[in-house]
């Protein structure tokens, strides 16, 4: 007679049992045993990821700075009416992006949350994501030849993947095409 706990343990063992080639490379045990035995290497991999992530972040910010320049003439507001413009046509515009942290920062954030306060890493991530969403909205507007976007709204949602937790940012608004009242 096997208990439920034993069954669960058996299932867990079966799921985490490593394939044969894995044993040849890392020795015996389940995947978790290997991860724990090689914790230093795993930590090193995380650290390397963090450094690469930092580099990618800087590159992304630079690319956003570059892409924002030609989009400066598009005016954005969250009013429900159009200003200085005789509107002729309207279209819904959407810009969205899904961003996530690297695992090392997730660990850093875990420790940060023990103390509480502002979580700077997350603030930077959401700022970056929202800016990217807005740029995509403007790029879509630019593609349609629209110069005014009204009633822009933002939503943020936590998306849980099978392995990874990410944040989705959406910016949406109504693009207005029309004649300028001033001439």
């Amino acid at each position, binding site marked *: 007679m096997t208990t439920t706990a034993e069954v669960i343990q058996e299932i867990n063992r079966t799921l985490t049992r490593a394939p044969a080639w894995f044993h040849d490379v890392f020795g015996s045990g389940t995947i978790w045993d290997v991860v724990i035995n090689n914790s230093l290497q795993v930590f090193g991999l995380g650290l390397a990821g963090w450094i690469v992530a930092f580099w990618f972040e800087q590159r992304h910010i630079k690319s956003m700075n570059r892409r924002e320049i030609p989009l400066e003439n598009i005016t954005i507001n969250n009013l429900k009416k159009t200003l200085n413009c005789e509107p002729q046509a309207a279209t*819904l515009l959407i810009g969205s992006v899904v961003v996530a942290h690297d*695992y090392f*920062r997730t660990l850093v954030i875990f420790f940060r949350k023990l103390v509480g306060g502002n979580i700077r890493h997350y603030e930077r991530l959401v700022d970056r994501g929202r800016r990217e969403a807005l740029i995509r909205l403007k790029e879509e507007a630019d593609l349609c030849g629209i110069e005014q976007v009204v009633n822009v709204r933002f939503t943020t*949602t936590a998306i849980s993947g099978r392995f990874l937790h990410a944040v989705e940012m959406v910016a949406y608004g109504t693009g207005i095409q029309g004649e300028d009242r001033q001439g």
Partner: protein
Amino acid sequence: MIITNIEQVPGKTILRELGLVQGSTVRGKHLGKDIGAFFKGLIGGEIKGYSELLVEGREEAIARMKKEAERLGADAIVNVRMTTSSITGGAAELMVYGTAVKFDL
């Protein structure tokens, strides 16, 4: 079909409201994309697989909303709002809703 998220359609007068229309979809990606996302998680940044998933999902939701509005004989959908929620690991629900309106009586 004109879709806006303001309360009117610029340059047109709304004479009749046909009521709330909505479209929603729950979408997931295949395991391969999730594994790709797992490795992308090592360096963080944009998760292209999921961005794509949600863009496709939103298009689908808007198409469903449009279909419902067409069934009612609407000319436009105004005051559109969007929500996203994570239903379970690897799947998300996208919902779009608005008010269907007509320009003539």
